[in-house]
């Protein structure tokens, strides 16, 4: 019995997180860019960066319930603000790391893609958007379709992805002929050469302010945050399909 206990203790001890490691929670749309940022950062810093991705709402609920993250990259500004107000986030650490860009995308429609953003409800089967109630990209998509004057006519053809990645899958798998996705996703899957998208002008929807907040007041987390705000960090973010706001 005693041997068993010792084995168990050794087993768990080996699982202790390294001292120089940070855990980051990131909204799915920014995962790929954050991984690029993390790899760049690790070139000059001996640091383990553990990244968990999920929807903003789910990660928020995890953090409120004590999930061990040091940093949170949200897809909106509402959740980081709430975390700061409720005392889960470090006061004053919140900042906008990126502004999301929306793209109307019809990858397989040869005729349609030349005419974007103009299309009629008759020539499409479904239009995929992120759920406006759950995802900032969904709300922006709704506003865009309203600004284009087609929202009412498309009501029966709207399909809503739980998050922006699922929305991309609906279009990529060929189930929906057209969709409003994040421009960063089109870059990620390497389909920006295909010229099958139309980038929605920023004045057509309210800003998709993606904010980050520090959860744990750790020096190494502060340092990584500073890297995100540096010129190198900003450059990586804008190359991956986002607009970097002026501070």
């Amino acid at each position, binding site marked *: 019995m005693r041997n068993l206990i010792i084995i168990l203790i050794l087993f768990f001890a080996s699982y202790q997180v390294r001292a120089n490691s940070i855990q980051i929670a990131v909204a799915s749309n920014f995962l790929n860019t954050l991984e690029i940022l993390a790899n760049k950062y690790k070139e000059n810093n001996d640091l383990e960066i553990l990244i968990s991705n999920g929807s903003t709402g789910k990660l928020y*609920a995890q953090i409120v319930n004590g999930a061990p993250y040091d940093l949170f990259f949200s897809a909106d500004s509402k959740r980081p603000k709430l975390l700061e107000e409720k005392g889960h986030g470090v006061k004053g650490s919140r900042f906008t790391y990126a502004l999301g860009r929306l793209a109307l995308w019809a990858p397989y429609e040869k005729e349609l893609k030349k005419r974007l953003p103009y299309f009629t409800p008759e020539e499409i*089967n479904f239009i995929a958007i992120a*759920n406006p109630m759950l995802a900032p990209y969904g709300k922006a998509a709704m506003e865009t379709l309203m600004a284009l004057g087609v929202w009412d006519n498309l009501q029966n053809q*709207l*399909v809503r*992805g*739980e998050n922006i990645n699922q929305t991309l899958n*609906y279009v990529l798998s060929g*189930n*929906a002929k057209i969709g409003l996705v994040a421009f960063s996703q089109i870059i990620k899957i390497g389909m920006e050469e295909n010229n099958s998208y139309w980038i929605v002008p920023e004045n057509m929807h309210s800003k998709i302010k993606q904010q980050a907040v520090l959860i744990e007041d750790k020096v190494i987390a502060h340092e990584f945050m500073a890297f995100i705000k540096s010129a190198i960090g900003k450059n990586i973010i804008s190359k991956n399909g986002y607009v970097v706001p002026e501070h």
Partner: protein
Amino acid sequence: MLEAADISAIWVTIKLAFISTFLLLLLGTPLAWWLAISRSKFKPVVNALVALPLVLPPTVLGFYLLLALSPNGVIGRVFMEFGGTSLAFSFSGLVIGSVIYSLPFVVQPLRDAFNRIGIGPLETAATLGATPIDRFLTIVLPLSWPGYLTASVLGFAHTVGEFGVVLMIGGNIPGRTKVLSVSIYEQVEQLNYDKAHTLSGLLLIVSFLLLLLVYISNRRSRVTQL
């Protein structure tokens, strides 16, 4: 407490569960019967296939279905050939998903019920001149009703509890593919914990009562058998 949107989600859920269970009983009966009496060397293979949805994550099923149902996919193309519209994001698509997802919950209880009857009574009936349909209606059905009850309730309850597959192939269309589990998820994500509590509580109670029904009836049937 419940709004029109919730009632519509409940209605879609119940309709989906009823239709899927009905189809599963229809398709599951011959399949379970074959699994009970067959001596084929392929039986273990079929048994394993039937049990697959028990162990596969719903995301695997949802992923394959999303590809298969699409206009370029295997199932989607056949469906379009016969004049159907797109299967993904449709109620019919959800029914296909649910039938696959809940298959073991219907086939396994039926197979076990048929196994308990054995071939003996049927052979006796056959020598007395009963046709196969006679034998099924007068021997198999009366003797295996507890199996049918278990299969129906489990199939129904499991379809009501379906989430991952629906989330992936449903497209969350109110009144068509938005089921209760998805709308609970949506409420939690929006931090509407009160509404999430109401709907979750409802689902919890209904699921418990359904399972209770199975266990009470199983006990009764065992007592009468003794």
